[in-house]
């Protein structure tokens, strides 16, 4: 009886160990398959319906986000520090990915949170400065709000003493997938290396 119990006990032990091994091997995700910096949304969020203008003045809606992977920043052309820094960082990351032969490359998108001053002409010169294939979006405030409210972007106009104003705004960069869904986000401060290392994992996930 004691031998029989020992055999049964050993078999149970082996089965338990095998079970733990199987469970751990299936539950463990290889660290290199997860983005190190970007946060991937558990459930992607659809870009809402809107009517705005691109930098050429053409009328655009949510479909403009279909068919390619986008890196989207919300800012304004009169912003001298954070906005050009961020767009410069995104352009540098895209260039590095391009030089390495990676595909698909991100399209860089700037959505104006200062549509009062940011005309399509201004947006064209601004986004064009950071790369030929970039997209600039502007238009009426109501439609900008449709985008920002759904995508969790904050912005607020703030008057200064001289009667001029700045716009406080979210500093995140959103990743929108080819199905026009908000897929992931990068928090600030932004570093080119973060986008370069995470991009292949984001578009492959």
């Amino acid at each position, binding site marked *: 009886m004691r031998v029989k119990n020992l055999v049964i006990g050993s078999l149970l032990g082996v089965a338990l160990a095998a079970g733990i091994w199987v469970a751990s091997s299936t539950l463990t995700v290889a660290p290199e398959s997860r983005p190190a910096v970007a946060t991937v949304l558990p459930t992607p969020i659809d870009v809402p319906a809107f009517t705005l203008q691109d930098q050429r003045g053409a009328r655009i809606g949510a479909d403009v986000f279909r068919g390619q992977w986008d890196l989207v920043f919300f800012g304004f*052309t009169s*912003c*001298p*520090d*954070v906005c050009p*820094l961020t767009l410069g960082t995104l352009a540098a990351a895209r260039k590095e990915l391009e030089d390495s032969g990676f595909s698909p490359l991100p399209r860089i998108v700037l959505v104006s949170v200062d549509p009062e001053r940011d005309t399509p002409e201004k947006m064209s010169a601004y986004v064009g400065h950071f790369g030929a294939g970039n997209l600039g979006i502007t238009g009426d405030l109501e439609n900008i709000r449709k985008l920002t409210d759904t995508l969790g972007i904050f912005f607020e106009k703030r008057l200064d003493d001289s009667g001029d104003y700045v716009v406080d705004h*979210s500093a995140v960069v959103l990743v929108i997938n080819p199905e026009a869904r908000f897929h992931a986000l990068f928090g600030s*401060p932004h570093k080119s290396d973060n986008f370069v290392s995470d991009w292949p994992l984001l578009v492959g996930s």
Partner: protein
Amino acid sequence: MRTAPLLLFALLTSACTTAEKAPLSATDARIMPPVPGVTKRAAYLTLVNNGDAAISLTSVSSPQFAVVEFHQTIVASGVARMRPLRELVIAAGESVRLEPGGKHLMLSQEKPAAATASADNRVGESIRLDFYSRDDLVLSVNIAGH
């Protein structure tokens, strides 16, 4: 008695050395390249206080820009906010870095080149920044690469 002239000499030498060394100096000065259609630009540099008293900078002017202000970008809870700074204090023996995404100079309303080209203020194509403590000019910096 023989030590007195020596002490006086030492004090004079020390005074001369201190006077020759500017109390405030700047390193790593640069300006963001112009972006088409944009009238505001940021400039960055490190200000070093070589003296033994704090220096309070209260204004900056430039022959090339109508308005130059100290600003600070603050990113908190994921939101970027830009605020003017009334003064910039550099403690004795310390330095303050004006850098991207932090404290910086905001240059607005660039004057047409013709308006300043004939003035001595324009050194080649560089931009001059004059730093003031109240009414006293304490430092002039030329930034190349305009």
